[in-house]
């Protein structure tokens, strides 16, 4: 049964998504059902990671007579839909299943009083399916379909609070961005299909010759995925979507954003991996976009009054670190000496930062959701003196804020340090910008802490208490992960991150479906 894991990763949450709407008028049951489905998926995800990191890439051919049958006799090119799970995909899948589980647990109390909860949980599971499909698939068109599934369910969740006009506004914005981005992805898929007559990424990457059509396709794919992961010229949808979505969805929506980042990396390293010389200039573009993203994101964050909006701008800025880390790796992809010296570590930093950022930003957004839960407002100027009333939330916030500002011994430090160190070797200016951004981040979180948790207690919130237990549990799990990842970064790096980096760099392994041919 273990060879069916990649298919089960899709089938189980899909089953959950289709059954949850049956719990009409029983929101409790729907929540528990969704929680158990995400728990099962979490177990499957851990199994998948274990399997992939010990035994190497997993291949799953849908509809074939056996899962590993990529080329049936008589075929020279793959025709079926193939899931190709390497360590990078497994890494992203692990973050997706973990965050969906935490999100479902948090939602159990957070959205208890809303209506239409069976649809909420169905959409949450559907969003999980979309992310898992995007990170596991080895087929370009499949990637588009799952991108659309994640986009549609994500934007429906952004607009979930339909009694708020702002939620619909943010949802529509997100939907238009994702629809246009995915249509452009489809257009470039059409270009590549018309040229090479196949949709399998591994096969396409052996064929790509980099003529004008390929350059157009690469440009479109790069722009669309950068647009969907919130890189700078097209970052405007991120603060709206993140601040309007219910806080229980934030973790999963963050992973959905980084699934697009994963697709961007996959396109740069695997699909167009053959043309390394050109890709190193793409690496420069990626690094510069990364620096711009982190800097513009943090400067926008400094002036915000709305706590969730402030954190959303920080999410943009942190995406910049990932782009910078992996971009630095991509610039030296055709230079083995530099790659060994700092390229591989830079990519490790970028990829490690993905999971770190997902953990601490979800934590911070959840504390913001907790503040909203008790105060009913997101405006920082109306809060104050909540530290004594909500001790656990305060602890969680401090851990998250320390982690995002890169203070040792929290997990943000581990990955940021790798990025500083390596980007300095490529160009000192990049590292300086990264450090300045980190300091500004700290400044802005000190502001949030002071105005929400410290200060004189506000009379309005005399009787508020700590948030319900499931929310506290979700936040404390993430806080514990922040500390654990920060104290033992080597274990995570060696078990999860370096295999993922090597999987991205191992082009020939990807092209031959892990040695099946």
């Amino acid at each position, binding site marked *: 049964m273990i060879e*069916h894991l990649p*298919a089960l990763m*899709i*089938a189980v949450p*899909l*089953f959950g998504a*289709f*059954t949850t*709407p*049956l719990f*009409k008028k029983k929101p409790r049951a729907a929540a528990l059902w969704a929680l158990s489905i995400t728990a099962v998926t979490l177990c499957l995800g851990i199994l998948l990671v274990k399997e992939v990191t010990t035994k190497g890439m997993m291949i*799953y*051919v*849908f*509809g*074939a*007579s*056996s*899962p590993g049958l990529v080329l049936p006799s008589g075929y020279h090119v793959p025709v079926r839909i193939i899931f190709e799970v390497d360590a990078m995909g497994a890494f992203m899948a692990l973050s997706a299943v973990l965050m969906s589980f935490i999100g479902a647990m948090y939602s159990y109390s957070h959205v208890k009083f809303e209506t239409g909860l069976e649809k909420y949980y169905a959409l949450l599971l559907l969003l999980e399916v979309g992310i898992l499909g995007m990170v596991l698939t080895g087929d370009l068109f499949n990637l588009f379909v799952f991108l659309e599934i994640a986009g549609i369910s994500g934007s429906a969740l952004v607009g979930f609070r339909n009694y708020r006009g702002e939620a619909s506004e943010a949802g529509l914005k997100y939907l238009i961005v994702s629809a246009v981005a995915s249509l452009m992805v489809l257009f470039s898929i059409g270009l590549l299909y018309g040229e090479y007559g196949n949709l399998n990424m591994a096969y396409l990457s052996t064929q790509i010759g980099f003529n004008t059509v390929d350059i157009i396709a690469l440009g479109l794919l790069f722009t669309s995925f950068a647009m969907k992961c919130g890189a700078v010229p097209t970052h405007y949808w991120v603060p709206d979507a993140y601040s309007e979505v219910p806080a229980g969805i934030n973790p999963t929506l963050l992973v959905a954003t980084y699934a697009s980042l994963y697709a961007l990396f996959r396109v740069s390293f695997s699909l167009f991996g053959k043309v390394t010389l050109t890709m190193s200039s793409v690496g420069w573009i990626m690094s510069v976009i990364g620096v711009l993203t982190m800097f513009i994101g943090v400067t926008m964050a400094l002036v915000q009054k709305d706590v969730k909006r402030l954190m959303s701008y920080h999410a943009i800025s942190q995406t910049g670190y990932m782009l910078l880390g992996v971009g630095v790796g991509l610039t030296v992809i055709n230079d083995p000496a530099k790659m060994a010296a700092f390229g591989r570590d830079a990519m490790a930093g970028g990829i490690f930062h993905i999971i770190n950022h997902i953990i601490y930003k979800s934590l911070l957004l959840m504390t913001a959701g907790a503040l909203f839960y008790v105060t009913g407002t997101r405006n920082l100027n109306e809060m104050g003196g909540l530290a004594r009333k909500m001790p656990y939330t305060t602890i969680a916030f401090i851990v998250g804020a320390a982690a995002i500002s890169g203070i040792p011994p929290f997990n943000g430090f581990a990955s940021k340090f790798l990025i500083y160190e390596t980007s300095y070797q490529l160009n000192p200016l990049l590292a300086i910008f990264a450090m300045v951004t980190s300091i500004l981040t700290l400044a802005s979180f000190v502001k949030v802490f002071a105005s929400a948790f410290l200060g004189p207690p506000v009379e309005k919130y005399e009787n508020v208490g700590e948030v319900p237990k499931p929310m506290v549990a979700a936040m404390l799990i993430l806080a514990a992960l922040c500390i654990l990842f920060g104290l033992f970064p080597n274990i995570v790096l060696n078990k999860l991150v370096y295999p993922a980096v090597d999987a991205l760099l191992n082009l020939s392994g990807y092209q031959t479906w892990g040695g099946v041919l």
Partner: protein
Amino acid sequence: MTTVIIKTTTKYLAALILTFGAYIIVHGHLTPGGGFQGGAVFASGLALLIVACEGDVIRERFKKVPLSALESVGALGFLGMATLGFMGYTFFRNVIANSGFPLFGEPTPLGINPGYLNTGGTLPYMNIFVGTKVLAGLTSIILVFYLLLEVRENE
């Protein structure tokens, strides 16, 4: 909105459209079309019926139809057909085709043929389930927008 013309045409056309939708769904593995297309045709027939009736009547009628449950059933059936492949093969494997199963299990001829309905394996089942899902989903979308219109007119 509802006029004599619409009512009279609907009386004759609706049954035809619904039959045509069902035909497209069932013949999905032989002719152009399939679950989604047939379901869309079916739903447009229902849309015609919705437009031809008064808002209150519609609300009364559709209160008893479990549209979202139908949608779930369709999706679950589709997933179930795909899961059948886990019996020794892979997910989405067409295990029924050419197996001699009495319904849709006859061997499929290769090349140009007149089209035998009793072939196709899991495909016709999937078409039927997808058709159920699509007609329920599209009908509920149409219903929601139509009832919104009613609310606006009353205000």
